[in-house]
């Protein structure tokens, strides 16, 4: 009898689980990891959606889309989350993306955004993070970084595999234009390694393997708030800072299109956005009712924010990445 009860309980639990549709969101690993915003967002959305939200993570941001391309029409992905402004034309050219249909009037970005397929979910500014205790005088511009001591080791990300890496390459391109290759060659002795993704690079920096790491102006907020630690700070560059807008998109072949629509709507709500500052450690794309955490006020505020036109990036990206690779491999 007891066995019967147990069995029927088991089946009913399974049935319950099967009744709920699953929404698959493909994203990068640091977003979905238990230290990232993923679990909290999952909880918040599942509280309202009667569904099972599943993050499927790949190890870098540019890998998200190629994963969907590899899987083709049979892919179980409903949503891709974690591409950025520099990849949207390439992403659109795959023909896999559907319009999101979200009212974007609540968006509060430093620039205007009217893209009907890619919906911003957070934004930030690239910056080099350094340890104030070991390096009290960080470089204040790219020129100073290029001329710095060869002992100053930096870790950056690969522009082919990671959006911060791509962002840095574009940042250098916007500052130096045709001289970019020359600048990379000069920087080369100071580049300890080029990692595939952000988390790898940041981890190396925290372990003391490098003196500076490419990350965001918001990264120090993490250390100040979560660790009460203020020795890690962003170096303010007088050239300005590259800006990144991270986006989500719904897929044309989404197995659960209605659920996907609901999630896209959910992205701009306070429930989602309020998790961003202290979850993904980026800026929310709408004004928060409760405002930003206090320590965000202490962050570097870029005088100039640099962002290239997405079409121009798409046209030149391949050649620029070749140029970057070539400059670093000689």
């Amino acid at each position, binding site marked *: 009898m007891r066995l019967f009860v147990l069995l029927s309980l088991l089946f009913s639990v399974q049935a319950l689980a099967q009744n709920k549709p699953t929404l698959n969101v493909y994203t990068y690993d640091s977003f979905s990891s238990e230290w990232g915003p993923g679990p909290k967002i999952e909880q918040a959305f599942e509280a309202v959606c009667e569904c099972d939200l599943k993050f499927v993570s790949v190890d870098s941001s540019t890998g998200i889309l190629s994963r969907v391309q590899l899987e083709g029409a049979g892919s179980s992905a409903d949503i891709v989350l974690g591409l950025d402004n520099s990849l949207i034309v390439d992403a659109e050219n795959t023909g896999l993306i559907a319009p999101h249909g979200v009212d974007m009037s609540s968006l509060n970005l430093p620039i205007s955004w009217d893209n009907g397929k890619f919906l911003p979910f957070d934004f930030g500014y690239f910056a080099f993070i350094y340890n104030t205790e070991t390096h009290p005088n960080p470089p204040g511009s790219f020129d100073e970084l290029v001329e710095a001591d060869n002992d100053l080791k930096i870790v950056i990300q690969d522009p082919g595999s990671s959006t911060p890496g791509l962002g840095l390459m574009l940042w250098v391109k916007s500052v130096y234009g045709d001289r970019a290759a020359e600048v990379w060659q000069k920087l080369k002795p100071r580049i300890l390694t080029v990692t595939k993704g952000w988390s790898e690079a940041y981890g190396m920096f925290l*372990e003391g393997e490098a003196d500076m790491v490419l990350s965001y102006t918001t990264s120090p907020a993490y250390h100040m708030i979560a660790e009460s630690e203020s020795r890690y700070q962003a170096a303010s560059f007088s050239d300005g800072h590259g800006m990144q807008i991270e986006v989500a998109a719904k897929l044309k072949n989404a197995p659960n299109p209605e659920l996907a629509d609901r999630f896209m709507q959910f992205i701009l709500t306070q429930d989602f956005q309020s998790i961003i500052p202290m979850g993904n450690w980026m800026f929310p794309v709408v004004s928060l009712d409760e405002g930003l955490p206090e320590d965000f006020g202490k962050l570097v505020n870029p005088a100039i924010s640099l962002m290239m036109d997405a079409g121009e990036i798409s046209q030149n990206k391949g050649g620029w990445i070749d140029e970057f690779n070539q400059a670093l491999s000689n």
Partner: protein
Amino acid sequence: MPGTMVLLLVGISVIGGFVGLIFESGSIAIIDQLQKPYIRSVIQFTLWQAALSTSLSLLFAFPLARALHRRPHFFGRSILLRLTSISLIVPTMVAIIGIVGVHGRSGLVNDFLGVLGFPRQDYLYGLNGILIAHLFFNVPLVTRLFLNGLMEIPQHQWRLASHLGVTGFNLVSRVEWPVIRGLIPGAAGIVFLLCFTSFAIVLALGGGPQSTTLEVAIYQALRFDFNLSTAVSLSLIQIVLCVALGFVFFSSSNGVKLQSEHRPGFYRPDGDSIDSASSVPGLIVPRLLDIAVILIATLFLLSPFLAVVLKVLHGKGFAILAHSGFLKALETSVLIAFVAGTIATVFALVIAQMVATLRLNTRYQSVAVIPELVGMMALIMPPITLGTGLFLLFRSTTDISTLGPALVVGINVLFILPFALRILIPPVHQQKQRFDRLSQGLGMSGLNQWRWVFWPGLRKPLGYALAVTTTLSIGDMGVIALFGTDNLSTLPLLIYRLLGNYRLDQAAVVAVVLCLLCLIIFVIIERFIGGKEGHYNAKT
């Protein structure tokens, strides 16, 4: 004919996977790729690091093999030898964790330098790291080959040399060098090709565009750009180079023997005698040199394991054991490895029987090599290219969530099959030669023949083959890097990801689990199938 069917399946998978990818990519642009300066420097680097790794492996292995040969007695010699024979099945990711723990900026070497008051050195990432890891895997392998060679020098040659008073350098050039020289093309060929196609090591320790190999460039083209045309073109370049270079090495080689029978008594005039540990008087300097060589080698080969253990003892990494991702990866790893190992061993047995039948039939002797070649065909293919090709071929007709794991198993089978063939072909041939007539005379056939004639003689090599293939497969970090998500993960991939997030303590704990798992599985399979009498031929 089960043999023909297995061969067809293997052949069609390999060719089909590749053709499938060419078909999907729509174009091959080898010339375009070769015109890119970056691709040219990738090819150059791939060749350069492989050449350096090979030369250094041979260079370091020779004195080590000599020292081991001259000193048949010292504490830990048998453990060191055992280590040289298992180096190839140490999971790559475990070694990488260990190497980062020893040579990284916060590794043991730098800790030691720090104590002595030196500044920290960054030497791990890029070419250095790749070389260190390649030496870690290949010096033991080559040492093994050289030592086996030295042990096959007939006793009378040593005695003759001793009578003639040949010593020192002359002993090397007259007695040892002729043997070693014969082994070099084969040994260099194996090491060169292993390093040429090196993937996980370059991925983890490469450090950017200046140290990217073709295999990694192919992975990047598939994983990040989804540029099939680039991937196909680069794969073709790699295959052509592989085949051409393999041909150069192996056409001048007279076969490579990984295992050698144990020779009980041996003697060399400049070594310790076999009966006692007493040294020959007057040879203090060479003795000290040998001790130094052995100590340095031991330190180099064991320190990564030590670093892993130290990280584990830190105690901060144990949390991972309770993590659901860990348990899932453990389960997936074991499942994939057992299925792949079993299939590969059965396939190898079937192919080996076919080879033996052909060899024993005078009419077909000349084609007996074909089945073995088909079985080894996959070796020249980049596994990720093959995996992607097969994935694209099947994705519209199969459920994608089962296709990933199925392909990981399938690709694993293709790449461990050559090892199983190497192990099984000689004993199967021997058994057939010995007992085929006899059992036919006794009117035995089918299962009975198997049960009573072949099984007793083959269970040991079969157990060994299954143990080797399963262990290799459990430590594999190839195609899983492409298909892996957090829903499909194995222990090596988990280590790679933890390393990526710089959770070295946790990675070390998983590495130890992976090592123990390999060890346990190896011993259990070998005992269970091979019988009680211990391991097959794997001891010197």
